[in-house]
């Protein structure tokens, strides 16, 4: 355990108008397994990284032909033209480790020392590339002529970085906080419960907490709980509108997973299992994930593998749920009659496969949809995902990337930019403030909730 120095204070449940919550410098975290020199630590990190490898990752490691085209797809390269941001370059020390430890010629590589051992210094150099300048958005994976899923390899590389104790401060700290408190941003169960009580009262809406039995378990992200609490209200409103039997559970409400983002597999698993156990405990048939990107990846696609068996419930992103309800005719909505454009959250759309649902919902809202270019699977990342928005030293780089999004949206001439991920939304808000831009990003969920036609009694 590490002693954090300052500034992680207990949050007052009613402090709702705070700027983006940040953690000031916690100390470096190192894996504490006795006293050992750096070199051995790195070797253990490499070995544990190798442990994660499977056939697919190995095939990818064998397939790169150094064409460099992945750089053309990456927003960080696009705005800097700095070759070090070439996506596959992020994997360089790990490719070396793979060839030395795990590839078919590993014995020969070691015997003839054809690939040098990775050093701590090299990994420290790489920290910036693997964390600050990668949102794991997967655009590179979509470009690669060899079909290498580079983004998945970066996630795997983060496991090794974590074991070497080389995760950027902020990510390490919030991940540790999530493990300790249940939320990376201070939305402890108590804070969450208190907020819900206050919001229910303020907005005259029923917010169910800890029902012993429910068909639908809803989760929220700490970003929404702390910064966009209207989303909590919106969730409750929509659930009521469609007549769902739903609940929040204090033993499993946090959808974000900083274990996944930092590369801490143990914490990732722990956080995922909380939601799963909570769903099992209340017999939920569906778990609805909030407007969050990596939450979808963590539970929808990685959850069952963490659990060790197929999940006994369906997992849906709130946008998918809304689309399903719209198709079933259960959403009565006022038509907005405005023009809108949709920013595709990478983990939900490109990586997650929920490409059309947000658009179905927008159609139900009666907006004039003007797709930006590129869009859907090839849309540009907002630049804040994968934990990047939390890393302060990356702010300048992220702002450069944000210009791409502004240009895209301006080009559509749409009045309403809409998205369905709170982290993207947070990134847009930060970008808007930085550039004094006149366009504000809207939440799809909140747009729906704000335009529900309720029966007046």
């Amino acid at each position, binding site marked *: 355990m590490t002693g954090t120095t300052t500034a992680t204070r207990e949050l007052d449940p009613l402090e709702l108008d705070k700027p983006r919550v940040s953690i000031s410098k916690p100390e470096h975290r190192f894996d504490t397994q006795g006293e050992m020199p750096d070199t051995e630590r790195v070797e253990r990190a490499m070995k544990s990284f190798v442990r994660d490898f499977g*056939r697919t990752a*190995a095939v990818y490691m064998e397939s*790169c*032909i150094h064409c460099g085209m992945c750089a*053309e797809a990456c927003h960080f390269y696009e705005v800097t033209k700095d070759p070090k941001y070439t996506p596959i370059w992020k994997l360089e020390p790990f490719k070396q480790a793979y060839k030395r430890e795990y*590839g078919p010629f590993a014995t020969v590589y070691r015997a003839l020392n054809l690939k040098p051992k990775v050093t701590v210094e090299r990994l420290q150099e790489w920290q910036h590339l693997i964390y600050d300048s990668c949102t794991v958005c997967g655009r590179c994976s979509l470009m690669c002529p060899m*079909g*290498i*899923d580079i983004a998945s390899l970066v996630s795997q590389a983060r496991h090794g970085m974590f074991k070497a104790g080389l995760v950027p401060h902020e990510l390490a700290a919030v991940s540790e906080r999530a493990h300790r408190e249940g939320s990376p941003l201070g939305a402890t169960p108590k804070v969450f419960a208190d907020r819900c009580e206050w919001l229910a009262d303020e907005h005259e809406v029923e917010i169910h907490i800890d029902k012993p039995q429910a068909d639908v378990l809803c989760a929220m992200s700490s970003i929404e709980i702390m910064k966009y609490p209207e989303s909590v209200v919106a969730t409750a409103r929509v659930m009521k509108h469609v007549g769902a039997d739903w609940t929040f559970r204090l033993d499993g409400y946090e959808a974000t997973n900083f274990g996944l983002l930092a590369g801490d597999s143990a914490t990732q698993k722990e956080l995922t299992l909380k939601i799963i156990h909570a769903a099992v405990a209340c017999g939920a048939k569906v778990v609805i994930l909030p407007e969050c990107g990596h939450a979808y990846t963590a539970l929808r696609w990685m959850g069952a593998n963490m659990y060790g068996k197929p999940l006994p419930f369906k997992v849906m992103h709130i946008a998918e749920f809304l689309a399903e309800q719209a198709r079933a005719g259960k959403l009565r909505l006022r038509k907005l009659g405005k023009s809108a454009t949709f920013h595709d959250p990478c983990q939900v759309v490109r990586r997650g496969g*929920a490409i059309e649902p947000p658009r179905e919902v927008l159609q139900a809202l009666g907006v004039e949809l003007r797709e930006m270019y590129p869009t859907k699977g090839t849309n540009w990342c907002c630049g804040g995902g994968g934990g990047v928005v939390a890393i302060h030293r990356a702010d300048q780089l992220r702002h450069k990337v944000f210009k791409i999004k502004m240009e895209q949206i301006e080009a559509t001439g749409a009045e309403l930019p809409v998205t369905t991920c709170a982290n993207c939304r947070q990134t847009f808000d930060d970008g808007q403030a930085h550039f004094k831009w006149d366009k504000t990003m809207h939440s799809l969920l909140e747009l729906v909730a704000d335009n529900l036609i309720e029966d007046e009694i």
Partner: protein
Amino acid sequence: MSLLDFARGPALQWSIVIFLIGVLWRLLGVLLLRTRKDLSEPRNAAAWKGLRLIALRSWPRKEFLGGTAFGEVMGYTFHLGFLLALFFFVPHVLFFADIFRGLLGTDLRSLVGFGWPALPNSIVTLLSAISIAALVAVLIHRLVSPVKRLISNFDDYFSWFVTMAPLATGMAAFAHLGGWPYERLLAVHILSAELLLVWFPFGKLMHAFTIFAARGSTGMIFERKGASL
């Protein structure tokens, strides 16, 4: 034993042996590694349909075409020219037809006729020249582009060399370059092709095989999720 006899005899034997051993070692050594079953509920159950990525990824999406068109066009130009010259030049057709003689002890001619039709020598010469030009362009790009210069290593340059050598020496032999004795030019050409075979399993040339595994894996994983292909 003359250089040509060596090139057509023991060198050919050994290079084929090394090629086969190396390719199988590397392929099986990778394909037999552990896989974990994905327990998540698929969006699309017929994940095998994702194998279409093998064909699909052969050309970038138009959104990506801006900075990649040069590499794609040069790459295809070289590959097509090389493969056409390799498989449709009369001396090569005869060379390959001979596999059967070695393996089955009988001449391909007596089995199916004389191999397969060939392209006229003038076309093959043109194709080879174009391939060589494309390869040179690709090398220049690798040396000049900051991205490629950063990520390139020995494998990239050596693989380029062993690919260029048979093309260049082949044209030299065909043209009886420099008044050198034809047997020497031919021997050098055959030896350069053997060098290619020997290097093949150990460098990036293996992408000829791994491309199917990589694109196929990603295709199936993404298809299962309904993710963008």
